[in-house]
């Protein structure tokens, strides 16, 4: 009984502090608008009203949220094992690269559905292998995964740029991008008159699967044990080295899925340097959701809404699009502060319980 009450108090804290953090983050961005001589209330009025003004725009929130769910899951997954995958952006690019290249090769040679399944599998394998290399050098050479993963993004970017101006370049050889994909290998939309494609459903299913994997399977248990206490994990016979490779494989595969849904679901081609902040925003979303896969779905939708609303706000009132980064940055900082507030509240509650116990 008391345990239930405690969990409720914790959960209430989580909701209240996160809500406050979001409000304060947006409030801080609103204050910045004063510097531009813009009326923040008006601007945020546009932000909120614009995202629900029509079906297309509203659905776009979920379009934008889709890759963010994947990239946040990618960061959160290794984070559970106390490993830092800062290379999500690079794994996303590798995924996008493989998705685009294999789609271009397979399209027209087989039914679209079959091609999409093969592309999806190849993307997962490619991103997973790219990611698992980080885990491998960590396990084998004790290399710092933080540094290696961070640097791997720049290498992935180099590979992408090189291929986009050589073998993958569009047939006219004018722009660093691929040819457009056949409509047969586009991810189908499931609401008429919007861009919302089934990649979003895939993202939600994957998020739930990751939750099940982490909390309901032996592998997930081992990953979390390594995260809590690597010494204890070693003593209980968990092979943490193999776990590094597996965790980074899954993380890389998750990030690569974002590349698949963006290329086959939204862009329908590969553009140089597109979506450059998927990785960083994913990290922010993972923090906002306390690395919980289900929470990530909602946090990603929030970031998606900020993205869509911020863009429209810019178009309608001449506010620069950097307002999106500003809002996301402020929200993240306030969310981190809310972690502190929550731990303070928790300590205080623990003390009260202790006093009560002593009195009794």
């Amino acid at each position, binding site marked *: 009984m008391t345990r239930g009450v405690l969990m409720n108090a914790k959960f209430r804290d989580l909701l209240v502090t996160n809500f406050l953090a979001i409000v304060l983050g947006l409030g801080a961005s609103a204050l910045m608008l004063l*510097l531009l001589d813009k009326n923040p209330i008006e601007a945020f009025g546009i932000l909120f009203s614009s995202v629900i003004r029509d079906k297309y725009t509203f659905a776009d929130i979920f379009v934008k949220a889709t890759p963010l769910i994947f990239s946040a899951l990618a960061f959160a997954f290794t984070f559970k094992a106390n490993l830092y995958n800062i290379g999500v952006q690079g794994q996303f690019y590798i995924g996008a690269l493989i998705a685009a290249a294999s789609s271009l090769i397979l399209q027209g040679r087989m039914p679209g559905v079959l091609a999409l399944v093969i592309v999806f599998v190849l993307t997962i394998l490619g991103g997973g292998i790219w990611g698992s290399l980080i885990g491998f050098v960590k396990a084998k050479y004790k290399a710092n995964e933080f540094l290696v993963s961070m640097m791997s993004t*720049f*290498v992935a970017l*180099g590979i992408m740029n*090189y291929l986009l101006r050589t073998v993958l370049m569009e047939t006219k050889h004018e722009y660093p991008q691929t040819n457009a994909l056949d409509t047969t290998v586009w991810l189908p939309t499931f609401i008429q008159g919007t861009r919302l494609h089934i990649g979003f459903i895939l993202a939600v299913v994957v998020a739930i699967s990751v939750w099940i994997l982490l909390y309901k399977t032996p592998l997930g248990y081992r990953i979390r044990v390594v995260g809590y206490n690597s010494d204890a994990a070693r003593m209980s016979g968990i092979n943490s080295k193999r776990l590094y490779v597996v965790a980074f494989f899954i993380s890389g595969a998750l990030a690569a899925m974002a590349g698949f849904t963006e290329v086959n679901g939204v862009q329908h081609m590969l553009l140089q340097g597109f979506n450059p902040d998927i990785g960083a925003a994913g990290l922010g979303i993972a923090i906002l959701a306390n690395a919980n896969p289900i929470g990530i779905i909602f946090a990603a939708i929030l970031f998606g809404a900020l993205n869509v609303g911020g863009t429209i706000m810019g178009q309608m009132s001449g506010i620069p699009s950097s307002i999106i*980064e500003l809002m996301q*940055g402020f929200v993240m900082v306030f969310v981190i502060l809310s972690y502190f507030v929550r731990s303070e509240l928790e300590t205080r509650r623990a003390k009260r319980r202790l006093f009560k116990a002593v009195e009794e």
Partner: protein
Amino acid sequence: MIDLLTRALMMSTPLLFGSISEVFAERSGMMVIAIEGIFLLGAWGGFVGTYLSGSLLIGVLAAIMAGVVTAAIYGWITVYLKQNQVVTGTAINILAMGVVSFLHRVIFGVPITPLTVQPLQALPIPIISKIPIIGPVIFNQNILTYMMYLIVPISYFILFKTSIGLTIRSAGENPEAVDVAGINVNRIRYSMVLIAGVMGGIAGAFYSIGYLGMFTTNIIGGRGWIAFAICFLGNWNPKGAFIGALVFGLAEAIAIYMQSSGGVLFPNELFIALPYILTIVLTITRKSFNVPAKLGVPYIKES
């Protein structure tokens, strides 16, 4: 060849400033993950200060201020509120990007031609700059590069030969002992983060007003991370950081040279990615790291 070496030394200057400040902070137990954001704020502050005042000195001071403010926020959350350094640093870096792009727009609007300032000029030292090879390479640099020559021995001396240095290192190895000796661990760590703000701010300014004379929001492009990596690869030692900065400065100079000479032997992208590949290779091959024992661990006093 001389040109290449001159440029290599020049490009290693900001990396050295950044990595030495990271050495001090990490020796005290603090990873300055926000270094990329500090560099960016420094580059922007330096540009704005110089553009608006017409004085490079004021530009550098503005860069220092911008860097310190960024570091102060990062340090407050990580040292005093004891939040995760990687997570906080990443948030600060995103926020820094947003703040800089936004404020740049607020101040300058959307200019038709790129805004430029006169960058720092090389100050050839009389007589010795005429020595063949060494002269033009080492003694025909700008003032910040001359400062770099001094910073290496000074910081080595402070860190390893003074009691202040001992205290800093103890804060990262055995903070309890520092605490028992009546010294405030958090204050030491916070000071080191602020110093990282000063030096990182100068490093960032080097990119905007040190040689380009202009500012774009992607001007840093991961150089903060490179400085961060150099600190690791240099084994948390100013001497190691110096060697690391030289190697990466050379890699960057070669990349610039190859791009401008239009070398066809290897693709451009390979040279651009060279410093990052180098970091990965060195991270994997280096064996004997002596990581400060409490690196990244907040100090929580037993009560």
